[in-house]
């Protein structure tokens, strides 16, 4: 029948010209029913594809599933353990911003790892810049030799421990402000982006937290 022939020919032409369209359809169909024998990469690809269409649960799962991959990538780049959290957070924020660039017909892990590597290199560079401004350890030791004995070091550790405990007991908003700006040395705007709070609230929280800590330590004998 000429009519159906035309329709078929058009569909053939359509899929030849726009092969991505059929890929999108396939991936969306898969998103509904997860097959049992898919690899972790395929599962993440399916979840991310669903997240691109606005599925919040899928997004939550794929981001949680990405943390270990990001940490692995950052470790491979040589990021120190205490900086891993920063790389994970910054990578998640970048993933959120550029999630439209993920093509579900390609590997999610490769996409994520490329972004994580970039953020890891950024972290290493900023660490390098900070270190270059700081006094070198050996020089510091020679010029300002530690004349205190072991008991002073123990006391220092105990004081740090008390401070950590005091911070942990702060209300969540205040604790967050101290952690972001005091401990991680983030700027007000960086902290605002990471926590999703506005800068005013962060400033107030930091101020209150410092006041509470001061009162607590000065009040103590």
């Amino acid at each position, binding site marked *: 029948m000429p009519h159906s022939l035309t329709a078929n020919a058009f569909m053939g032409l359509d899929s030849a010209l726009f092969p991505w369209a059929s890929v999108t359809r396939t991936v969306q169909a898969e998103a509904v029913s997860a097959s049992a024998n898919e690899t972790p990469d395929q599962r993440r690809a399916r979840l991310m594809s669903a997240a691109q269409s606005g599925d919040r649960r899928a997004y939550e799962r794929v981001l949680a599933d990405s943390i270990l991959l990001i940490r692995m990538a950052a470790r491979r780049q040589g990021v120190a353990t205490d900086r*891993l959290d920063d790389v994970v957070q910054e990578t998640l924020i970048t993933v959120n911003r550029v999630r439209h660039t993920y093509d579900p017909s390609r590997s999610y892990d490769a*996409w994520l790892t490329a972004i994580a590597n970039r953020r890891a290199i950024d972290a290493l560079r900023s660490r390098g810049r900070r270190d270059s401004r700081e006094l070198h350890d050996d020089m510091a030791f020679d010029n300002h030799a530690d004349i205190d004995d072991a008991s002073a070091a123990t006391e220092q550790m105990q004081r740090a421990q008390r401070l950590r405990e005091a911070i942990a007991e702060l209300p969540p908003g205040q604790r967050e402000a101290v952690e972001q700006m005091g401990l991680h040395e983030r700027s007000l705007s960086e902290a605002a982006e990471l926590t999703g709070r506005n800068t005013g609230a962060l400033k107030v929280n930091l101020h209150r937290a410092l006041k509470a800590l001061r009162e607590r330590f000065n009040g103590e004998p």
Partner: protein
Amino acid sequence: MSDPRPQPASASSERSYESLIGRLSTELVPVRRLPPPSLRTLGWLLVVAAIAAVLLMHYGVAGMAQRFAGTPDLAWAGVGAVLTAISAAWAAFALSVPGRRAAWAWLPLPGALLWIGASGLGCLRQVIAPGTQISTMHQSADCLVFIVGFSIPLSALMVVLLRRAYPLRPVLTAVLVGLASAAASASLLEICHAYDAAATDLLTHAAAVALVVAVNMAMGGRLLSKA
């Protein structure tokens, strides 16, 4: 493979991940997926093709065909420029999506070698057959203006398209943008190029391409990395 698995995240960092993920997912809105690099390249090439069509209507095919028949190496240089434009554009679009190998940046090399090599042969012919018409510096300056004049809008268009993506290597991507738009302009120049390739001509081409690549590198590095 040794296990690069770091120790699991501490309880406090897991809490902070959870709160970040929770916030990102509650604010989630559907996004329009970026079309694949091949399709984006095609879109950009269509603009180049449209300009070529306008130029062909104005200048006609006859002049170009005659020139190519007389000096086949010029035709090869044109083919090389077209191949360079296509492959560099594709590489730029492909590298602007995370997860592609940086080695794709070498893709325009064969086309560029053909382009530069065949243009170089044109120079040599000056020595072998001195009878051919040599373009003066003035005409070469026209070439420079032409290439730069077309490269700027073509680069700008590509930069706009690339900003929607996420180039992890902004400088390398900018070099490819510059190469693609300079090669495309040089291809367009073939349509209305009245003179045969000469040493001055090749130098102007090289200067124009270098200029466009350098400006793109200097600007694109920042223009693209903001994304």
